[in-house]
């Protein structure tokens, strides 16, 4: 543990602390002594911090702290679930493509290139237009868009490990394809995929924010950080904090996920090289 701490540094633990704090607040939001995030108080609009509203109120008189915390719920659940879709589907495709090669690999890499070439904003607009605006649809779209990246990471790692002798050794022992993929390749490919997953979370939170800001993401009145920045934009001159606060929270969260992801990758990489 001491060795790990020496190699990670204070910044890593700060980032981990921030992620934990946001996660815990989002989970226990329902039992926190904060006002409802959707209760409006038309007579107390854009108020500064007070005992009743610790971070003030927004342009409809809703409690900003409550909206930030409930917004964390939405931003984090979309930000975590969408990469899970990408990780499971993309990871599986990449593993199979890298292991079996041949026509299946050509098919997968071709499909990945097609998805990558498709403009993501158009896809998001098309889905919201046809299937309606909801958190589930948003998660599905973002998850789908994440598949190519995970496929590529998984395939590249699988190609490297498939060429190693321990895979040949498993074949020589008579192991079947399923056993080789699950027992020999997966534990090795899981590491780079895991590190990439955290970066995927960071990217997804930003994209969710951007889509919500454009009105393509989470439907109002549900708060997400992107929605809050979008709403705060309208009163930027009177109360800049309304856009600024969610932006800072999002910035810190994304930065933390990036830091943790990078550190974990750096921790696992050199040992891999030495093996």
């Amino acid at each position, binding site marked *: 543990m001491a060795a790990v701490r020496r190699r990670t540094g204070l910044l890593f633990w700060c980032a981990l602390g921030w992620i934990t704090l946001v996660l815990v607040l989002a989970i226990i939001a329902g039992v926190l002594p904060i006002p409802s995030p959707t209760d409006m108080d038309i007579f107390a609009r854009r108020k500064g911090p007070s005992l009743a509203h610790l971070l003030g109120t927004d342009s409809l008189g809703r409690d900003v702290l409550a909206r930030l915390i409930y917004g964390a719920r939405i931003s984090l659940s979309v930000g975590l679930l969408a990469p899970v879709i990408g990780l499971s589907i993309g990871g599986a495709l990449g593993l199979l493509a890298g292991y079996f090669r041949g026509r299946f690999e050509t098919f997968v890499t071709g499909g990945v290139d097609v998805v990558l070439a498709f403009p993501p904003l158009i896809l998001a607009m098309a889905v919201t237009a046809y299937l309606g605006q909801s958190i589930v649809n948003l998660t599905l779209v973002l998850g789908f868009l994440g598949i190519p990246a995970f496929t590529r990471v998984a395939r590249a790692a699988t190609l490297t490990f498939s060429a190693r*002798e321990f895979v*040949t*050794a498993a074949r*020589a*022992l*008579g192991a079947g394809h399923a056993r080789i993929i699950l027992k020999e390749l997966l*534990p090795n490919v899981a590491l780079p995929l895991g590190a990439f997953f955290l970066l995927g979370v960071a990217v997804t939170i930003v994209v969710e924010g951007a889509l919500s800001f454009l009105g393509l993401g989470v439907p109002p009145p549900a708060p997400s950080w992107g929605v809050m920045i979008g709403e705060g934009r309208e009163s930027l001159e009177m109360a800049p904090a309304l856009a600024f606060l969610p932006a800072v929270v999002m910035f810190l969260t994304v930065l933390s996920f990036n830091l943790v992801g990078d550190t974990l990758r750096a921790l696992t990489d050199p040992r891999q090289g030495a*093996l």
Partner: protein
Amino acid sequence: MTALLDIKDLVVEFPVGGRVVQAVTRVSLTVQRGETLGLVGESGCGKSTLGRAVLQLYQPKSGAVVFDGQDLTKLSPPLMRKMRQRLQMIFQDPIASLNPRRRVGDIVAEPLIIAGVTDADERLRRVRAVLTEVGLDPDITMARLPHEFSGGQCQRISIARALILEPELIVCDEPVSALDVSIRAQIVNLLEDMKDRYGLTLLFIAHDLAVVKAVSDRVAVMYLGRICEVAPTETLFRTPAHPYTRLLLDAIPMPDPDIRPVEGVAVGEPPSPIAPPSGCRFRTRCPRAAGRCAAEMPELVALPSGQMVACHFPLI
């Protein structure tokens, strides 16, 4: 003695950028039950490919690999998987041949799981026994990952994995080449001990002639996908019949500064296996090459001395 392994006219080809490279060209070899056959040759001559083709890790283009009366190239995949319990392999790179993310206990138990030993207690007992056998302490090693061990220890783990099913034939693919010289003798001795104990037959692939001389009963010399010479170890080292064998023996450095390097023997690099020379593959570097060598590929023939040689103009 009966032949445990009989390789007949084996051909292994690989596609390389639209062309075909023949890594092994019509090779025939027999390995008697209980013997150690050394297989030597330069890097890239196809000796590792031959070893892996014996285990059906590469699909041969033609020819047969008869193991204990059964042609492995014709076995159905399920039957071949079953057969694999009797044939094992030890690899050159001891660290790369062990999964870096699995614990040593699991790695050594893997053959048992694949072979269908479902009793976890029995697996544990056998893993502990075989680890002790190869000179490792099961209590210390089982829960660790391969990178916590040195190359020599990793090779011991590899040997334990190969031994646990008590196979009949082990293909050793340069098992000591990647090890420190000081460790080599230990691993070679371990293999010899295990051979006696388990009644193993070894196909021992190496490019280090000293190691091959120490372990082999007979030696086969390979050059560019062809077998040049097969002979009992003593005979081969004393009176080589093939000019290439002679070249290999002369290339062994002598620890004596007064000995002049041998003159007049072949020099240079082996030709590319993509476009091998016509006739005898060795003729481009052979001091005895004549017109016939370019026209006609020599086949292995028995000499009165008991060695087999594929040369139109053998040295004896």
